[in-house]
């Protein structure tokens, strides 16, 4: 049982935990722990239902970045996958948010670099579940058992991100084609330009793989607030384990990719240019500032055929991320039906086409092969995307990522 002590007279409802280091806020009315309510933006007492602003609790600006660089937090460790979870208040971790195993033990009280900014949860747990349910129900290829899923667990986690401010410029020589077939002409294009990126997000946790965090984006960084510990109440927060210098090259690379796409779009617009290829470039990047922020995400886990699937929901925008399971048998039946319908029809049409052009004329056959090759490519890309998403959503995969730490 938690036993707190009054910290000081100026903040009467803030208490330290038994170790004297973890901080929690308590309801002035009934004494129960307060949690942050995303809907109202206030601290909610789940026991008596009262709500308090940070100002009313005398807590405002107590933990802004200007005052202290570090903060204390309780660190829980998963014996199964090795993940470490930070819990800033009296929330007791009973299972690992990443691999789902109930082998989580209190490890230590640690000092962590205090985030400078935070985007508080604006999507509630109920809204996150409802968003996922609506997406699942809308899916035409989702098995019935999945549509009637029951959530195993829902965890709100503040994911650590580094935010990069950067000036980026480049001069590029590109080639592109105008016209098609035998009328196609190759031309060269020169562009020299610059731009400024602000709050470019890069995931600072090895625990959550980069692909998942990229898919969670974009976060509306205009809503960034100076960090306050009371936003963490009722949620988990992950601690950064990737230093910002480790990500600087990735940030510049990402800026380059985004910049290059804009240049390509500009060249394409200059006169129906296609097949654009970058031949030369001289990029320059200047990182002006790097900020540490916590951004919100919901982790929702359900089971299908005894396999846990973890879907993510952006805690600010409500974007649902992940790969839903599908029934291979029903997809195989669909495939067979389309195949059975198309093949004889196509064969008859091709027979007449080939007869019309004569046996010596092979161009129609190559044209048909070319068209179907495009379908093959698109189909393989789709299948690869589905496979990747399914891997990302499988808790086993997330666990294996954590084992690599």
């Amino acid at each position, binding site marked *: 049982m938690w036993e707190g002590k009054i910290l000081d007279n100026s903040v009467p409802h803030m208490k330290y935990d038994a170790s004297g280091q973890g901080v929690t806020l308590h309801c002035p009315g009934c004494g129960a722990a307060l949690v942050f309510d995303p809907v109202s933006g206030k601290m909610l007492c789940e026991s008596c239902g009262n709500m308090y602003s940070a100002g009313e609790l005398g807590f405002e600006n107590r933990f802004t970045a200007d005052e202290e660089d570090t903060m204390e937090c309780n660190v829980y460790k998963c014996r199964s996958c090795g993940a470490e979870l930070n819990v800033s208040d009296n929330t007791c971790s009973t299972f690992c948010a990443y691999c789902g195993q109930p082998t989580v033990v209190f490890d230590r009280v640690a000092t962590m670099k205090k985030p400078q900014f935070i985007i508080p949860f604006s999507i509630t747990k109920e809204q996150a579940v409802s968003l996922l349910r609506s997406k699942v129900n809308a899916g035409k290829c989702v098995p019935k058992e999945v549509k009637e899923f029951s959530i195993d667990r829902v965890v709100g986690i503040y994911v650590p991100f580094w935010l990069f401010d950067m000036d980026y410029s480049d001069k590029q020589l590109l080639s592109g084609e105008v016209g098609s077939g035998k009328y196609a002409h190759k031309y060269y294009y020169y562009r020299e330009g610059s731009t400024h990126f602000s709050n470019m*997000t890069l995931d600072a946790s090895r625990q959550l793989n980069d692909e998942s965090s990229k898919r969670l984006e974009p976060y509306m960084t205009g809503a960034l607030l100076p960090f306050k510990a009371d936003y963490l109440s009722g949620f988990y927060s992950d601690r950064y384990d990737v230093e910002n210098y480790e990500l600087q090259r990735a940030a510049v690379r990402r800026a380059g990719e985004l910049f290059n796409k804009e240049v390509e779009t500009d060249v394409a617009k200059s006169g129906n240019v296609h097949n654009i290829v970058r031949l030369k470039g001289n990029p320059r990047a200047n990182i002006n500032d790097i900020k540490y922020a916590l951004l919100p995400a919901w982790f929702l886990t359900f089971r299908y055929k005894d396999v846990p699937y973890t879907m993510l929901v952006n805690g600010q925008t409500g974007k649902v991320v992940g790969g839903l399971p599908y029934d291979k048998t029903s997809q195989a039946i669909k495939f067979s039906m389309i195949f059975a319908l198309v093949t004889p029809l196509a064969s008859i049409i091709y027979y007449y086409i080939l007869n019309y052009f004569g046996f010596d004329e092979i161009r129609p056959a190559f044209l048909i092969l070319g068209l179907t090759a495009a379908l093959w490519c*698109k189909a393989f890309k789709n299948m690869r995307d589905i496979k990747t998403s399914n891997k990302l959503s499988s808790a086993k995969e997330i666990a294996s990522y954590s084992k690599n730490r």
Partner: protein
Amino acid sequence: MIAIAIILGINTGISVALYFVSSALKKSNDLGNTEAKYHDFADSFVRFDVRKDKVNRNLYRF
């Protein structure tokens, strides 16, 4: 002739079926498979100081 038509027909049948099944599956089951775009991180468009079309590539050495 008929053998070629059948081979092409089978090839078309497989590719069309695979395309339709995978497209439907991706639309239905692959949720949120998008990344942030340029304007999610930049307030303004790229400012082009020099913009030249149909140039002589040999004049640009850098």
